[in-house]
């Protein structure tokens, strides 16, 4: 491990008062940032500085700060979640940057993810896709069948888990040159398609979720594969292929 040191950086950050106003990139200088800090801790530091100068701090989404809630969402130096793979922005550390660097920070850019303020975007489109079919229609009762009554091959269970690991952060949409949400939708469709519990309503699910996805104004997948690279959870393109298969099956039914 390289010992932590302090660096000085320049920041170019998208500032936008609210959804209806026009935004612009603003420049900030921030000194004495520990390389052991996380990227968001660096932003905390910037905000503390801005508050002390009685200026408006930068709004950005974040919550768990351990890479699982999917709330953080920054486009850093041209990459979703910044210059590292397999992580969310909150897991990005300042040791990835050098003294004197200029860092660009922008919000996710997508018609379906309108900017709310500064770096905060509205990702409720994902919720609506999930509401359209991302579930198994089973009511709560104490009498659902025993958990072990339907064996699930380990391979399928593992694949379903890998698909289900999606945190819904939207990096796939942000990084896709087409603003496509197919990795997100493909992962959800796959999770259920792989499990016997989900197969029952697979047809309706894939048709409804894809319909909703299209209505939300996401772009179309052109298989560039950028989403898979930038996905903090490494969700595979296989899931999009599986969704394509499921959709074909459902369409032919």
């Amino acid at each position: 491990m390289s010992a932590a040191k302090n660096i000085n950086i320049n920041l170019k950050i998208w500032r936008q008062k609210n959804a209806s106003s026009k935004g612009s990139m603003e420049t900030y200088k921030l000194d004495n940032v520990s390389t052991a800090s996380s990227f968001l801790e660096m932003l905390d530091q910037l905000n503390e500085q801005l508050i002390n100068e009685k200026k408006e701090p930068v709004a950005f989404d974040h919550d768990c700060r351990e890479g699982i809630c999917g709330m953080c969402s920054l486009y850093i130096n041209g990459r979703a979640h910044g210059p590292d793979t397999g992580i969310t922005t909150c897991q990005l550390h300042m040791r990835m940057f050098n003294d004197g660097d200029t860092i660009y920070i922008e919000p996710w850019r997508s018609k379906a993810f309108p900017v709310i303020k500064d770096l905060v975007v509205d990702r409720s489109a994902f919720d609506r896709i999930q509401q359209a079919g991302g579930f198994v229609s089973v009511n709560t009762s104490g009498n659902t069948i025993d958990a072990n009554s339907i064996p699930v091959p380990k391979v399928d269970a593992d694949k379903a888990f890998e698909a289900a690991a999606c945190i819904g952060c939207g990096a796939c949409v942000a990084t896709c040159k087409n603003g496509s949400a197919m990795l997100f939708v493909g992962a959800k469709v796959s999770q259920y398609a792989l499990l016997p519990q989900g197969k029952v309503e697979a047809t309706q699910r894939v048709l409804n979720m894809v319909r909703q996805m299209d209505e939300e104004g996401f772009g179309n997948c052109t298989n560039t594969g950028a989403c898979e690279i930038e996905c903090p959870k490494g969700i595979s393109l296989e899931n999009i292929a599986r969704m394509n298969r499921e959709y074909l099956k459902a369409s032919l039914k």
Partner: protein
Amino acid sequence: MAKSALLKSSIVKKYWMALTGLFLCLFLAGHLAGNLQLIFGTSQQFNEYALFMTTNPAVKLLSYVTYISIIFHAIDGIMLTIQNKKARPIGYAKTDGSSSSLASRNMAVLGTVILVFIATHMVNFWAKMHFDKNMPLVQKEIDNGMGGKQIQLVGTKDSQMPFMQLDQTGKLSKEFFEMIKAQTQGQYDLEVQDMTKIVNKKTGEVVFIGYKDLHKLTVDFFKDAKYGLYFTIGYVLAMLALAFHLWHGFQSAFQSLGVNNKFTPAIKFFGRAFAIIVPLLFAIIPVFLHLKK
């Protein structure tokens, strides 16, 4: 599924792109096989092949499928691109392309280049072949037995007469037909129909069928003193675009159709080999023709 979804749904659009794209890959393979005769075959072989390709009903059908595929692939692609642009109304100030390949990000540009190429290609060859009154026919120079030369049109297998005499200038002139009419007391009143056929107007009988000389057209095109070099370079550049387009497109089509499994690495390998070999071979031909003495 609702009918409109056949066109509207994002995923169905992908199916269409994939299916038409893969069909066009097949077309490319066939086309290449034919074109290679420009290097490895005689001009006669090539022209016979050209004749077959323009007259065989099955090929005709396939060609219509090909035209439709090209048009559909292009229109669908344009629609996708427009929608995709709309999906990101405000772009990024800074982007880093490291997470996807150049080819995959520029399919629309590459496709447009290829479409333009196809259009010029068809004007230069296909249209001339089909509609140009001046399309040359296959000729042969023979010894007239008197130390001089005589030019004949070569007849096809189906032709009644294996060849057709031309006049001194190498043309089927009206005077020549008049002469034959006079010689045969009006039995043979010949005229040219459909560019290649010579028909006896009196009986409706086709007395001669010639070949269009596509070989000559092609060679002349690339050897043109003024523009041949540019045509050759243009052709090579178009093939480069095609190579990039295929580099991403081939495997992508399988992904779109839902094939992503243990065969994917093999498909990827094959796709990339196809993307290199096919355009390369295509491109070698005009270069070969241009440089050939």
